[in-house]
Each structure stands twice: as structure tokens, then as C-alpha cells.
């Protein structure tokens, strides 16, 4: 049976600053949900609200329709934005300790700690102090701390930040596995390409308000049509910027991603491109998540 985390009408003000403004969204179990927004949008405050780590001026957090209480929160896993572990404590001991605080008995906590340290590639550092680990390995240990008690819901604030590509792949696989095994996974990130690869659902907030939400496919399919055009020898895409009904979305590696107004004729765009030089690539594309994000937060 699918379970659901619901945030309803969350409002939080810090003096004159409104961090959350009647924010509502939900996270289904079995799905990886990307939580996006510019810096200061309210992502961290919303995640902390799930764990009662910030006072709310209004709103409720529910799990399976019931207001989330302390016992329920203990069954969730949390990775805060600012990483937090005891620097002088040994890695395995620390993970076991946190597992026990989440309700595991000692043997189960030891087994789970060993399993996750192995799974995340830091088993060889189990007896080392956390402070002796590299940033990337500390990040892996932090994820192990969030996941050691086999949580029903994982809430991870920037779990990919600071990881190398291998680390991103490892952590990404774990998140997807968790969702496939029926857990809910909500994570924030500014690495939109990774979010697009990993997530089924995306939530975008800005100034504490929800500005877009849906599956990656739904969000990608919406909005204006996209063209990818590569004109050999063209570096700045000046030809496209002069066309009516055409907006340059991205320009990178000699290719332009163009957003077209509803009435813009793609054939007219093709002719203009050919006039600028030899066209080696011309295709209609879905919106990328980065484009969805920019449009959502700029509107």
C-alpha cells in the first residue's frame, strides 16, 4: 500500500522574512522526489519542519493522513544540509549509536551499520574517527546515518553536494533502490541533471511557495516547444536571437536550445539556421529540468 507524506499550508516567518508561505505538497512512498528551488527558497526550512526542527506559524505535516508525531519521526531518516556527526567518534560506533536512537537493538544496529558502510564504500574506515575522513567519505557516512534504521521515508537536504561523479552515482543508486523497495525519498539539490536522472517527481518552490510540481515527464512535456539546433562554425547564435517568436534557452558546446512561441514555424527557424551556416543537428526536444526550473522561478 502506498504511503504518503503531506505538507499542508506550512507557513514560517523569521521576523520580516517569510521562509514558507502556505506551502503544500506531498511525497508518495516508492518514488524519488526532487525538491528544487533557488537559494533561500525555503527548502531547508520545509525539510526541518518535517522533523519539528523549526517552529511553524501555521500548517501541518501528516503521514498516512495522521499528524506526524515524535514516534513517527523516529521512523524517518534525515540528512541535514549542514552535515552533523561527532567529529571525534569512530564511524561504525557513530552509525550504530544513531541506529539505536532510532529504535534498533544493539545487534541489529551493528549489522545495519556494517551493511551500509559496506554498501556506501566506507567499510574500510569503520574504525576511524569521522574527522579523519575526506569530505566525500563524510558525506557517505552521513547518508549511512540517515538510512541505518531502514526508514519509511528519507528526507535528504543536498545529499549530492560536494560528491565526485562516482560518489553521486553511488548515492543516486542507493536513493533509487530505497524508492524501489517502497520507501519515500525526498531530496533537495541544485544539480538539476542528476535530479532529472534520478527522480520520478519534482517539486519546485520559490519564496516559500510552490511554483511547480509533477512528474519529470509531465514537467518536461509542458511549456513551450524546444528545438536543438547546431550550426557548424556558429558560436554565439546571433542568427537565432534576431528571429521573432524564438528565445535562446541555452547555448553550449556549439548548440543552441531554443524555446519557440506557440505560433512560431519550425521550418522558418530551419531556414534561418541554414542561412547562418551548415546545419548538423536540428531536432524537437522535451524541456530539460533546468529549463523548467528557470521558467518556474522566473515567472
Amino acid at each position: 500500500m502506498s504511503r504518503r507524506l503531506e505538507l499542508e499550508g506550512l507557513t514560517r516567518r523569521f521576523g520580516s522574512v517569510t521562509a514558507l508561505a502556505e506551502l503544500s505538497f506531498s511525497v508518495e512512498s516508492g518514488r524519488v522526489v526532487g525538491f528544487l528551488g533557488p537559494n533561500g527558497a525555503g527548502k531547508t526550512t520545509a525539510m526541518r519542519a518535517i522533523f519539528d526542527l523549526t517552529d511553524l506559524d501555521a500548517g501541518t505535516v501528516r503521514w498516512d493522513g495522521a499528524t506526524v508525531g515524535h514516534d513517527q519521526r523516529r521512523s524517518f531518516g534525515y540528512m541535514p544540509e549542514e552535515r552533523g556527526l561527532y567529529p571525534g567518534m569512530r564511524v561504525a560506533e557513530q552509525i550504530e549509536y544513531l541506529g539505536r536512537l532510532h529504535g534498533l537493538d544493539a545487534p541489529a544496529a551493528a549489522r545495519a551499520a556494517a551493511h551500509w558502510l559496506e554498501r556506501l564504500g566506507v567499510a574500510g574506515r569503520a574504525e576511524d574517527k569521522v574527522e579523519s575522513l575526506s569530505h566525500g567519505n563524510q558525506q557517505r557516512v552521513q547518508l549511512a546515518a540517515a538510512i541505518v534504521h531502514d526508514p519509511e521515508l528519507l528526507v535528504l537536504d543536498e545529499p549530492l553536494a560536494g560528491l565526485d561523479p562516482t560518489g553521486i552515482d553511488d548515492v543516486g543508486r542507493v536513493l533509487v533502490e530505497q524508492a524501489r523497495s517502497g520507501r519515500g525519498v525526498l531530496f533537495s539539490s541544485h544539480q538539476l541533471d542528476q535530479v532529472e536522472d534520478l527522480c520520478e517527481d519534482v517539486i519546485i518552490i520559490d519564496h516559500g511557495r510552490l511554483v511547480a510540481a509533477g512528474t519529470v515527464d509531465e514537467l518536461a512535456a509542458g511549456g513551450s516547444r524546444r528545438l536543438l539546433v547546431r550550426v557548424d562554425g556558429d558560436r554565439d547564435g546571433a542568427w537565432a536571437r534576431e528571429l521573432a517568436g524564438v528565445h535562446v534557452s541555452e547555448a553550449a558546446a556549439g548548440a543552441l536550445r531554443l524555446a519557440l512561441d506557440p505560433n512560431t514555424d519550425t521550418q522558418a527557424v530551419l531556414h534561418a539556421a541554414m542561412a547562418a551556416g551548415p546545419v548538423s543537428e536540428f531536432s524537437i526536444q522535451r524541456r530539460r529540468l533546468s529549463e523548467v526550473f528557470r521558467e518556474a522561478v522566473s515567472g
Partner: protein
Amino acid sequence: MRLTDIRLIAAREVRARVRGRVFRAGTALILAGVTAAIVIPKLTKASASTARVGVAAGVPAAAREVVGAAAKRAGQPVLIVGESSPGAARSALRAGRLDLVVEPERLVVEKPISAGDTSTEATFVRDLAAALGTLRAYRQAGLSAVQASRLSKSRPFEIASLEAAHKNTIKTASIIGVILIFIMLTQYLTWTLMGVMEEKSSRVVEVLLSAVRPLQLLAGKVLGIGLVAMGQATVVVVFALGLAEAVGSTILNGAGPATIGSALLWLLLGYAFYSWVYAAAGSTIERQDQVQSLALPLSLPMILGYVMALVTAGSGTPSTFFEILAYLPPTAPFAMPILVGLGRVAPWQFAASVLISVAATVLVARVAAGVYRRAVLRTGGRVNWRELLRA
């Protein structure tokens, strides 16, 4: 509230603290101090070497008894050696075979004794000179040798008082107790302050509070450090009693169960009261330099109680102000053990002070838990105390 969580948090604190070098070094220092307090006085007494006293021919026989009595009064072991003549006795003195010679009309020592010399040996020589002078006066007054001997053995009148006498050793044990309470409270409360600050600054508190309630986390930390404190205190007391027994020290003779129990109880009550205050204060800061600025004002009541306790122990006469301090929870851990040591407190007064301290601790803990809950997750700026206390 799950007690298991508090136990887990306390156990982690105990492990972390006991493993630390600071704890081991601190315990070693305290044990070294206790060893010095017990052994050095014993060694000082034992080092009063036997004085060889030559009694020259012609000195009345009663003089030997006078020498023995003076030696006993001064705590100076002596060996009396008969010498055939004053000349022979002086030769032995020069040769170092004797330390002192009694001649019919004088005492002879090798080197002059200064007026300011208060050593056991000097005290003995002066006392002996006075006693021999008295013996000579008796004989000149025409008393027989037996009469003179009796008079020379006269004992002073006993001085009685309406109030019971208080042995100095009781006071000594209480003073040692108060010093240890101050050292331990300072050490463990600083741990509490820094421990809370470090959990906040390392942000691990956010991970912990996603699993346990703030009050559980705070109670576990206070309990864990408190267990380490009481464990260390117990080790120190057992060590001190064992060492005193082993070396035959009398310094703890007066330290009956009441004195030791009182010191341990007030260490516990003092820690219980202050630990919440220090924990709440630690939750408002994030940096090492802020610890220093908070530690001094927080410790002022302790310093007041400690200094007043030492002054009162020295004078032996508690003032009204000091007696009031014995009922105020911030200063009672220092004042009350001294009143117990001086025998100046009735059981009901002791119990009243304990009850006041327990009640105040409950109140302080409630306020502290609220401050901790509101402050420990606030980072990046100075926390407004008024806001924390009001909310």
C-alpha cells in the same frame, strides 16, 4: 519519553568522557593532590629524627624524666645517653654522636637556635630548657627529689567548654571535600557547557533531534557527565580512605560517614543544579571564544561559595551571611559541608537545605529545557536571552 534513549545518550557521554585524555589526566592530578595531602603530613611527622640527648654526670636523676616529658610534649623522639662528664658529653656533641647535652646548669647545643625557629627540634630544646629551669627552682626551694619530680610531672588543668569540642581533623576533611567539589564541579560543568556547544556547532544536534526529544538529549548528557563525576568522586574517596589507612594517616580520622556522605551528596546536588544552567547556556553559543565569556559569569556564585567556605573553615566561626549561603542552592554545595565539618548544623537544617536545592533544581531544569529547545537549533547569530526565556 523513552528512558532507553536517555540511557543511550548518557552511555555515549560516559564512554566519550572516560576515554578522553582530559579525564584521565584530571583524575591522575586529583589523585596526586589527595596523595600529597595525606602522605606529606605523615612524612613530615615521621621525618622528626630521634634526638640523642646526653645527660652528663652530676645532673639530677629527675632531669631524665623532665627530658622524656618535654620530648613527648614536642613530639620529638629522644634517646637519652648517660655521659661520664660534661667534657665527655661536649666531645660527643662535637663529634656528632649527640644532638644535645644536659649539664647541671645548662643545655648545650651545637649551633645557636634562632628566636624564629619553630621546628620540632627547636621547640623541644626551648621547652626542655624551661622545664629544667623549673626543676632547678624546685630543688633550690628545698623540695626533695621525689617532690620535685612530682611537680615536674604536673599536668595543666583541663579546659572545658559548654559547647562540644570540634576536632581539627573534621574540619580538614571538610575542607578537602569542598576543594574537590569545586574542582570537580568546575571540570564537569565546563564539559557540559562545551559538550552542548560542540553538538550545536558541529550540527550533530540536528541529526540527534530528528530521533529524540530535546529534553531526552539534554537529560542524557547531564546524566552521563554526572555519572562520570560521581564515579570519579567515588574513586577519589575510596583511594583517599585506602591510602590513609595504608600509611596510618590521621588526616581523615574525623571524616566519618557524615562528612564524606555530605561531600558526595553536595557534589551531586551542586552538579544537578548547575548542569542545567550550563547546558542551557551552552545551547546559546557556537564558538570556543564564547565559552570563555560565558564560563566566568556562570561560575561567580560557585567562586563566592568556595571562597567563603575556605575563609569560614579557617576561622572556625561561621557568620550569619555564611549560614544563609548554606541554604541557597548556588552556594550550599560549598557552605553546607563546612557547617557539617564544624558541627554547626542540625539534621533538620541539613535536610531543609537539601530540599531547597532539589526544588530549585527542578525549577531550573524546566526553564533550562525550554531555553535549550529554543536555542540549540538557532545558528548563525547571537541568541536573544530575553526572547528565549519569554517564549
